[in-house]
């Protein structure tokens, strides 16, 4: 199982400097994810979910131990190679959507493809496909300020998915959404997970999300206290 893992985490420790001392946010994490998982890291506030997700996404580095993503040890990457890893293989979804406010829906979704230097026609097709997945083909020219929260998060999902990345990391994607919208986007992501075999990893304490998970990893004080696969 180890060699086929898309993400492997070994003895990972993360400490933050706090004042004169240190705070241990992650304390000896061991985890492996396979391609196509739909997994969630759950746990109380402050348990280290975001920190773990950031390290997997190579936005942060471990103090000790290893996080290997797509065969690359994120701690050993230069900032340039880490950027390339994110550009090619990772998609992010944030609690606050993080859309670019001056861009239209279309331009927001197009952005990752511009970084990949795809041609005009390739971009147009991929953006239209992605907007179709999330059902926003009629809002192409709107700007984020003109959209509802649910619509914004759907744009963010389209943006994360448009380049068909191997892994999507979603930190509290439903925290700002009502129940109907939360179910809506989770169904959407589940469908993409099944159709495109994209690996999804959530950080959440939202029960609505947890209901959809196929694997639930519980974190407490920086340690994995439970790791269960859910069969429906």
């Amino acid at each position, binding site marked *: 199982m180890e060699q086929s893992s898309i993400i492997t985490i070994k003895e990972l420790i993360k400490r933050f400097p706090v004042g004169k001392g240190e705070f241990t946010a992650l304390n000896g994490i061991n985890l492996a994810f396979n391609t196509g998982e739909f997994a969630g890291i759950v746990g109380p506030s402050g348990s280290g979910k975001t920190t773990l997700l*950031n390290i997997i996404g190579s*936005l942060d580095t471990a103090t000790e131990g290893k996080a290997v993503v797509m065969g690359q040890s994120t701690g050993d990457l230069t900032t340039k190679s880490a950027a390339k890893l994110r550009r090619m293989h*990772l998609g*992010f979804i*944030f609690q606050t959507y*993080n859309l670019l406010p*001056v*861009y239209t829906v279309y331009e927001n979704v197009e*952005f990752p493809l511009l*970084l990949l230097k795809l041609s005009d026609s390739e971009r147009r097709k991929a953006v239209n496909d992605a907007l179709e997945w999330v059902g926003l083909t009629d809002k192409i020219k709107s700007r984020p300020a003109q959209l509802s929260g649910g619509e914004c998060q759907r744009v963010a999902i389209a943006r994360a998915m448009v380049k068909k990345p191997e892994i999507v990391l979603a930190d509290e994607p439903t925290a700002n959404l009502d129940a109907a919208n939360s179910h809506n986007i989770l169904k959407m992501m589940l469908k993409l997970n099944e159709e495109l075999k994209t690996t999804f990893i959530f950080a959440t304490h939202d029960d609505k999300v947890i209901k959809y998970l196929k694997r639930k990893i519980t974190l407490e004080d920086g340690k994995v206290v439970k790791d269960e696969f859910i069969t429906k």
Partner: protein
Amino acid sequence: MIAFKLAWRNLIGAGLRTWLNVFVLSFIYILIIWHYGILDGWNHQANIDMKAWEAGNGQYWQQNYDPYDFFTLEESHAKIPEVLQKASSEGVVTPILISQASVYPDGRIQSMLLKGIIPDQKVVAIPSAELDTESEAMPAGSPPAERTGQEIPVVIGRRMAKSCKLKEGDITTIRWRDVNGTFDAAEVKVVKVFNCNVPNVDAGQMYIHINTLREMMQAPGEATMFIIGKDFEMNETVSGWEYKDYDFLMSEMNEMMKMKKVGGSFFYLILMLLAMLAIFDTQVLSIFRRQKEIGTYIAMGMTRTQVVSLFTVEGAMHAILAVIIGAIYGIPFLLWQMKTGMTMPAGSDDMGIAIAESIFPVYGVGLIITTVLLVLIITTIVSYMPARKISKMKPTDALKGKIQ
């Protein structure tokens, strides 16, 4: 290339603040180009005017002559040497004899220079021919002693006319010292008031037939200086006379123009500083406010260098947009100025430099390119400085937007 595309979207999206900065920058472009254009146009015109009215293609000065020293003026004339006499009779050079004298506008004494000139000379534009309008019985150029009851014709410029309250046809008294040092007086009649842009040949002087002046000074056949016309070429030196070439005669004015340009540069330096402060401020503010956006760029896989260049290009693009906006309203304005000229305010001609009533600016390609490049380069540097900070940001902190 992608940085340009994204920067463009961001700038246009940023709206009013962008356009405010762009407008200020475009204004600076136009102002610099216009002002230097005016100075260059002025210089160009002044050169033409001074050549036509005063300097000719150079001058010969009697060795004692010093235009800034009135006390030696009476010793600064001498017999005309043969070569110059020959050239003079061919009309390619023309002699000028200069003496001090005084007039009495409103009963007050005012000193001036009496300049003797040959009426039919064609070397400079002074309308000396007007001095020749006297009757045959009393030819112009007769010594004053033979002219009892007859005024001596003189020609003056409009500045002199104004300061002495004289107009064409007016008669006034002038006084001068003869060789023995005693005062002599005569009546002169203004036969012509000429309009000229060169104060040096106008203010405080009267033109008179050279022979009359020679008679008055008892200096027959003498001159103070010669103005050289177009087709005169001489390689030998003339003993007792100093050759002053055109560049020497222009050096004072060119020096003054340079000073004006330097003075202008200080003004633009301050203006640029203010504009750059605005851009710098915009950059600092936008980097601070857009931390989350920066974090998002990095999360999506932009390298830090790419993000830094994106923000730098965004800042620098102000200068590029300013060229476009500046061109829209600036080119018509600059062309209109070139066509109609700028009317100089009254009194601005007392500065000692030849100045026309309207100055027509001359815009050099070099001037325009230098201005545009200079503003672009400075804007880029000013935009880059705050953007450098991005490369030190931790992406996780940026995403949280918590950097102070």
